[in-house]
């Protein structure tokens, strides 16, 4: 089915692009809606036929994976869900992959968010990943959810000195003093790794500025693609590695499947999205090429 899908998609894409190129070379304008429709159909066919490609992990993603692998079991890892439903398709797979990886390695995970919209998504991970795939994980001993606190960077500025000042209780109103996971944790400096996931402000950049640098805590952000280029300068000193957009998430899912075969059958939404992503990029690059050819051709005609 996938092979048939690839063939149908390719025939459609290259046939359509050729038709558009001939049309534009005749000097006729192409309505922008035709371009929208073309991108939509080429992506939709890839989604319906489940077009998939193999992912090869890059060094920058592998470093995040290796860091979680190298931490001794029982290490304290904080995952922050700093995103909203609009960012969900590209960063939610990262969050779920991080949670799976940490729990299978026996790390203790602390879940929180500084985005109000992150709370529901964090709970979705708890319900669909932790409770379903790791039924033996005990709340308070293996994982804890701190929930949302308003204040943005103010929250980070406080938890770098004392968690309890900002979070006297967890998400369910239980005092942090009675939660075993917080017995040895006073501030964010006591964490072994922080994995902030997001793409807005406050987000991963603020975690680097307010927690990673002052607290000397290793940070490995998972980023919405639109902000990834802004965070690259922090690698490798201030961010030990990073996951950029759905591509980074797909690479991480691929690594997780390679190293832990038990995850072969769990959903890998980022890997599934890379097929349509590739098709979309081919189409957009083709339109850029067609646009340039048409432009230079019309300029040459004008000169003649």
């Amino acid at each position, binding site marked *: 089915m996938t092979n048939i899908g690839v063939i149908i998609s390719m025939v459609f894409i290259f046939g359509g692009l050729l038709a558009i190129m001939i049309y534009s070379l005749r000097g006729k304008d192409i309505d922008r809606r035709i371009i929208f429709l073309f991108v939509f159909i080429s992506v939709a066919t890839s989604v319906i036929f489940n077009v998939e490609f193999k992912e090869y992990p890059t060094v920058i993603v592998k470093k995040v994976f290796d860091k979680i692998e190298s931490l001794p079991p029982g290490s304290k890892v904080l995952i922050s869900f700093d995103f909203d439903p609009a960012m969900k398709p*590209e960063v939610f797979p990262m969050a779920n992959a991080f949670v799976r990886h940490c729990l299978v390695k026996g790390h203790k995970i602390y879940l929180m968010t500084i985005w*109000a919209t992150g709370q529901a998504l964090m709970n979705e991970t708890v319900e669909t990943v932790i409770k379903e795939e790791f039924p033996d994980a005990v709340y308070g001993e293996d994982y804890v959810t701190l929930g949302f606190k308003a204040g943005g960077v103010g929250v980070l500025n406080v938890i770098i000195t004392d968690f309890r000042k900002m979070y006297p209780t967890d998400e369910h109103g239980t005092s942090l003093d009675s939660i075993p996971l917080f017995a040895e944790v006073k501030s964010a400096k006591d964490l072994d790794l922080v994995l902030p996931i997001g793409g807005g402000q406050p987000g991963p950049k603020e975690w680097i500025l307010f927690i990673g640098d002052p607290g000397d805590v290793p940070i490995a952000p998972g980023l919405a693609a*639109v902000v990834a280029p802004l965070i690259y300068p922090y690698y490798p000193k201030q961010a030990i590695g990073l996951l950029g*957009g759905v591509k980074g998430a797909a690479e991480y899912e691929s690594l997780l499947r390679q190293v832990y075969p038990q995850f072969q059958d769990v959903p890998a939404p980022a890997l599934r999205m890379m097929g349509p992503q590739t098709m*979309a990029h081919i189409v957009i690059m083709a339109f850029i090429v067609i646009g340039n050819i048409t432009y230079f051709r019309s300029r040459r005609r004008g000169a003649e």
Partner: protein
Amino acid sequence: METFGIWLAALLTIGIISFLYKDNVLYKACESIFVGISAGYWFITYYWDNLYRKFYLGVTDMDNPHRFFLWIAFALGVMMLTRLIGKIGWLSRWPLAFIVGATAGLYMMTYFVSNAFVQVGATIKLPPDFGSVGSYISFGMIALGTFSGLVYFFFSKEHKGVFGGTAKLGIWFLMVTFGASFGYTVMSRMSLMLGRLDFLFGEWLGMIN
């Protein structure tokens, strides 16, 4: 109920996407619903998190020695609302000034340390794996890109000769950076579209396993 929710979400998604064809009533309705729900969501979230948990529970906690400070924050919050009342609207500038001042204070040193000192240090120092062919190329590119990029933004000398050539090289580095940003932005926007298509073809139409 779940089926109703899926149908509603599907129709709203189609309504928003219909803007790509042209502006229309369905799009306007969906946009208004989105804005209204967002505003309501944020209002409720901040009401419970700030006004109830932080303020109300804070001031009624007699063991909290700092509870009187919360009244200052409350007063600043009320002053912000005076913007809605013409004659005393100028009062809203005080809480705004407080926010701007506090944010500037919070960010100033952090930015100096993380975005200036540490970044400059990391650029100058040799990477830990220096010695391999890849690291020579990588370090050379960073050095050349940083230097030529800085030369491009140096406007006190005319961009001519060797100086002009270096500035031109700086533009090339900047263009490659912008190109990478554009590529990532395309990927980000496509991911949003894919998320919705995945929902439409999967949860709504049941065409994907």
